[in-house]
């Protein structure tokens, strides 16, 4: 039997789990928690969707989620790795986007469904430091699988851009 109070407690526990490669953002704000089912008997199942197939943080996040749920009083924890439907940056919450910006990481511009295959980014990327839209891509791949490297032509600062996929 699903229990709304227990599920609320599970969601709150998962909000304390962070992606080790983007420590500003909880996994809930990152949009990788796809479903939570909890019962009043201490059982809980959380479906987590990896950002990238080979993301090295996947196992750590799953482990941290399990530990957080156990700490929140759940005795029987199941973490399901949900590959399908595939995670998209469209699932990052508004609060998540704000936190990325505050951390100096430009949130994904536009919507993943509107990406063109062989063209560069369709939407312009806004500099998280000075707000200028006069920016350029330095590298399509950045410090982690989920980021690209950009540079602002106005304030001249380089910055990470959360790739739109």
């Amino acid at each position, binding site marked *: 039997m699903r229990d709304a109070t227990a599920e609320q407690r599970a969601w709150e526990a998962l909000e304390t789990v962070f992606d080790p490669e983007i420590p500003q953002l909880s996994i809930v704000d990152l949009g990788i928690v796809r479903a939570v089912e909890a019962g009043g008997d201490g059982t809980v199942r959380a479906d987590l969707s990896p950002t990238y197939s080979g993301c090295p943080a996947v196992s750590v996040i799953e482990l941290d989620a399990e530990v957080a749920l156990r700490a929140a009083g759940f005795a029987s924890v199941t973490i399901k790795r949900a590959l399908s439907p595939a995670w998209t940056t469209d699932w990052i919450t508004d609060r998540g986007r704000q936190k990325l910006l505050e951390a100096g990481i430009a949130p994904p511009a536009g919507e993943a469904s509107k990406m063109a295959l062989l063209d560069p980014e369709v939407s312009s990327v806004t500099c998280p430091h000075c707000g200028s839209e006069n920016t350029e891509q330095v590298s399509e*791949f950045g410090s982690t699988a989920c980021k690209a490297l950009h540079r602002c032509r106005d304030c001249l600062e380089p910055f990470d851009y959360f790739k739109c996929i």
Partner: protein
Amino acid sequence: MIDPQASPLPAGTDPAVTLGTIGTTVPGVDAADVVAYALRLGDDSLILGQRLSEWCAKSPEMELDIALMNLSLDLFGRARTLLSHAAALENEGRDEDSIAFLRDIGDFRNVLLVEQPNGDFAETIVRQVLFDCFDLPFQEALAASADETLAAVAAKAVKESAYHLRFSANWLIRLGDGTEESHRRAQAALDALAPYAHELFETDALEDRLIKAGVAVDRAALRPRFDERLAAILKEATLTLPGTEWRPTGGRRGEHSEALGFLLAEMQWMQRAYPDSEW
């Protein structure tokens, strides 16, 4: 996979992570066929990922180093799930690690293209363009597979493959339509590697059975899209496909080039020297 050694959970607690559909496939389909198919796809990803990882710390530019390692990681990620699926369906006590690190060269089922040495940067990029032009439509089609694990891996891979192709195609255009030297090298790489692309479209009785069951992708049907996309990239890159009839093949039967042996020697060394060692 959660490493129980690193877990602050009570000793003996089983890893709680499940990927619900791993180890199950379509009712009525011979599981051995799906095992063989998952090994082919897993080995293509694993071996290309390993090749790309050889560029680590010695790419032409730091940005390229990061890019090639990102591609490599995506491919390793796919390989892990595919090989785990094969191991679970096979149910003979193997896992993703023993399949990757303890098989001999004759048991690998990847196409010859992905094991070809990195060569210079042009050769790596040409190999990648050939693979990506095939892989994007392949993953799109596999996402509709009746096998839920294969479909899930593919649904994830589609986005990554599109990103890979954008990177590799743009670099091939830059090299081909660049300086005299970069053009010469890109054309030489294409002359050497283009014949290997044919093997990507080969099918056999096993895949025919799986195609009928809705599990496998009809590779031959992808050929027009591959040809069209590759032609568009080569035109912009001012490169021409070699007019050779040579079609090297054999990877799916375990008949590999010498190059794979050296790759495996490096990749498997640790597990061979220290069996069952863990991080």
